């Protein structure tokens, strides 16, 4: 075949030569499953300490992890073509749910983020959007000529802006920024010119001070607290002072598992949820933290490899965005607990105690595996 012809074949990526893997038959990626299990197990151990060695929360967390794994397996069985075809409808459905919040939303601590299905559960439509936004953008770009033309960039920014604004107004600034980031990753991976990327970043930096006036009082408070926790040590600064104290007092190898005084004497707030990395830092020290970071990097690295092996535009953009977004969770959470980012309510993925976020995470990895294991015949 002539080179000219080959070039036009869809599915001819740079990394195309691979053997059929063990997991392909069950549509799972074995290394990724193992890494997910390792991180979840490590997370359960930390959580077991954080809850004061009670078994009930561990049981409920394990059930959630199992449910996540189940969802992942189911999602991985379905061909990505199915998701691609349904993408516009899924997106519209998710937007509708976000809109419903303004009608039926449950207000908790001054913001409306939850929808209540009576007798069943409360859930956050913004969680679904974490996967749906990359999905719709990957759909939008999959049959377009890349790099995207200016008007395509414009429309994709509109698609990003709609859910981001809706979530920001709940208000839930942290989640809306992460969802915005997941959409922008698609654009970046689609090949938007670096010039455009850097000028956007430049404009962002320059206009950052203006953003100050848009922020709500409590959000400004969080930024001021980040800059100087001592301005209100018993109030807003308490969390960050106590988490830094927990981490710092752990030293190289920690105070020992279950021996953390900051967490067990309740100085550390939210020690089972958003601030759980401080428990790890206190009890297992720098060694324990670096171990977790290495596991995360391996998982993300595996996600990168799977993305590179994806055969079409849709698969590549979606896998890449999901992988990078996962890192954003890790970075924002750890950055916030260690005092380099303002406090936003982002859990530590696969470790923090809590329901819906675990489900979303596993579902994302399910999509990655679905894309990876439903490839067309290799040459």
């Amino acid at each position, binding site marked *: 075949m002539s080179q000219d012809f080959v*070039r036009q074949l869809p599915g001819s990526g740079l990394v195309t030569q691979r053997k059929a893997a063990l997991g392909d038959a069950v549509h799972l990626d074995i290394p990724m499953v193992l890494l997910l299990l390792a991180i979840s197990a490590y997370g359960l151990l930390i959580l077991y300490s954080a809850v004061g060695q009670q078994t009930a929360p561990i049981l409920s967390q394990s059930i959630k992890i199992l449910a996540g794994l189940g969802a992942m397996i189911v999602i991985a069985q379905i061909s990505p073509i199915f998701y691609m075809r349904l993408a516009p409808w899924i997106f519209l459905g998710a937007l509708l749910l976000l809109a419903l919040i303004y009608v039926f939303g449950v207000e908790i601590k001054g913001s409306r983020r939850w929808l209540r299905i009576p007798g069943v559960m409360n859930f956050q439509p913004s969680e679904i959007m974490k996967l749906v936004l990359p999905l719709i953008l990957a759909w939008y770009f999959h049959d377009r000529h890349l790099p995207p033309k200016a008007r395509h960039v414009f429309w994709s920014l509109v698609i990003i802006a709609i859910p981001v604004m809706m979530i920001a107004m709940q208000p839930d600034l942290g989640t809306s920024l992460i969802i915005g980031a997941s959409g922008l990753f698609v654009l970046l991976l689609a090949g938007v010119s670096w010039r455009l990327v850097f000028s956007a970043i430049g404009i962002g930096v320059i206009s950052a001070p203006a953003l100050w006036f848009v922020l709500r009082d409590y959000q400004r408070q969080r930024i001021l607290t980040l800059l100087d926790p001592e301005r209100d040590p018993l109030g807003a600064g308490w969390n960050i002072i106590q988490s830094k104290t927990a981490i*710092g007092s752990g030293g190289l190898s920690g105070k020992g598992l279950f021996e953390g*005084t*900051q967490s067990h004497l309740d100085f550390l707030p939210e020690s089972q949820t958003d601030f759980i990395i401080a428990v790890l830092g206190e009890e297992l020290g*720098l060694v324990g933290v670096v171990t977790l970071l290495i596991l995360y990097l391996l998982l993300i690295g595996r996600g990168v490899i799977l993305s590179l092996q994806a055969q079409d535009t849709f698969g590549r953009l979606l896998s890449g965005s999901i992988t990078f977004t996962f890192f954003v969770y890790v970075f924002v959470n750890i950055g916030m607990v*260690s005092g380099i980012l303002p406090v936003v309510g982002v859990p530590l993925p696969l470790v923090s105690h809590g329901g819906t976020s675990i489900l979303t995470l596993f579902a994302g990895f399910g999509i990655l595996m679905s894309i990876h294991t439903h490839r067309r015949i290799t040459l």
Partner: protein
Amino acid sequence: MVEPLALKDHTWESRIFFERIVVGFGILVVLTLFLVARFFYLQIVQYDIYATLSDKNRIQVQPLPPIRGLIYDRNGELLAENSPSFNLALTPERVEDMDETLATLRRVLQLSDEEIQAFGKRLKRRQRPFESVPLRFKLTQEEIARFSVDRHAMPGVEVEARLVRHYPKGELMVHAVGSVRRINERDARRLDPVAYSGTDHIGKIGIERFYESDLLGSVGYQQVEIDARGRVMKILESDLPSPGKDLVLHVDSSLQQAASDALGDRRGTIVAIEPETGGILAMVSKPGYDPNLFVTGIDFATYASLRDSPDVPLFNRALQGQYEPGSTIKPIIGLAGLVTGMTTADYTVDDPGWFKLPNNDRLYRDWNWTVTGLGGHGQVNLEKAIYRSCNVYFYSLAVKMGIDRIDDYLALFGFGVNTALDLPEARSGLLPTRQWKEDSRGLPWYPGDTVNIGIGQGDMLVTPLQLATAVTVVANRGKWVAPRMLKSGSDLVERSNVTRMDSIELIPDHVWDLVIGAMEKVVHRGNQVYGENGTAWAYIGQDIPYRMAGKSGTAQVVGIAQGEEYNEEELNERQRKHAWFVAFAPVEKPEIALAVLVENGGGGSSVAAPVAREIIDHHLLKNTAAKGRVVALAGQ
């Protein structure tokens, strides 16, 4: 022309995607390294800082306040103890809605605005989270019960028990023992914060104030591990406090009660001293107040009514009240006259009822002077001058002696100085001298001033304690014993502003015999013709089963104009003279010496002497009864 079909360039796409994802992964690795660096900085570089902070969080050094020493009277009766008191305290972190909780408590416990405000101030002074702040002190059982009904609706509100000072005798002993008060901000600035950590009260008055350092004890500590709510999880180390010293006072509660009863509802004061030791047996000042009111904080209305009362209950008359001694001073002037040779036992003065200085028209009246000129005591020697309390004799003697010699002798008995060893509120009175008059008024000493001093009037001022002390010295025939409260339990610390007195040795026995004999006659000389009985005999001397030496006196409250007859009924009750009586007994071997003052009481012999008799009866007859020598008073 056919428009070129925009076909997807898959190779380009793959290459760009590869490039983007590699760059992205690179950035992500760099950011991860940045996180590692951050943790390295916190956990390795700043480890010491955070390890210390973490220990500071969990390890708390708690003061263990010492138990304040107890105070007993000479018979072992408790005068000051520590009893549990229940406070209502709030932990703000656990209170859901502070305004609502305060509103509920306000209704349930009838809190005042003041209490809420004071609570707000204490709330701001709080040191650490989860520290409770007291809202109300000294809850009654009923208040605790009422609070308990509603407590489920008020998380973060607790009843806390503490030991606080309690004075079982209440008002009876207040001016003898003094009291503690809650430490206020001014105290806090001057106190050693270590010694007083965990202690809420400090001795403010009297014995409680003077022996503060003994009573306080020394503070202990415990190092505890606490959780973020301030709950103690375990004790790591402790150093127990040592309780304060228990003190025993000379005061006799039953005598104090008898003295208080004898005075009844009248305003006045009594100081009784044991002549052998100088120990104060009783010290009454009326009206008084209940010291327990002040221990846990008094409400403003009650405090204002005590502070503004015309009867000045907060004022300790025995130590701080300064009055003219009146005729009670005469025996001492007499002693001085004999020792200086200015008079003799036989020397007599003719008393027409008045006295005049040469070349001066001013009339100095005797107490029985009348406009008709029929008053006076006739020919009077020193003995009669004392038992009849003849003014003219002492006017004349004083003028003969001159003020300087009088001052010298009065000073020997402690007038004009403070000799009280452990009574911090005691005052020095005033012994007028030439120098004093020059300095304070810019005027020279006039002979008329000396005339007044002769009968204890004019500018001279004494406190009841000073007068009782002087009588004690007379009872001891010159042997000085400084007045004191403490019997045992600590060392008497000498205060810098207390004057140490030497015993009086220059007065010969026969002089003491004469003067003390004359004082005995004040009480015991009776059944004589008109104008020959001792002044107090009719009131107390007729049935007395022991020998008592005494002397009455009256202290002017307002001056009486020249030529005007003294009419007590015309005077307002508050302008009437104060009645004095000083005494000691038994004469042969004195066991008690005292001074009684009834404010605006009128005559010393008629009003104050019976009070003195009642007290001495109680002291001597109760004691003799105890020794098995039953003295039947009935029928005497």
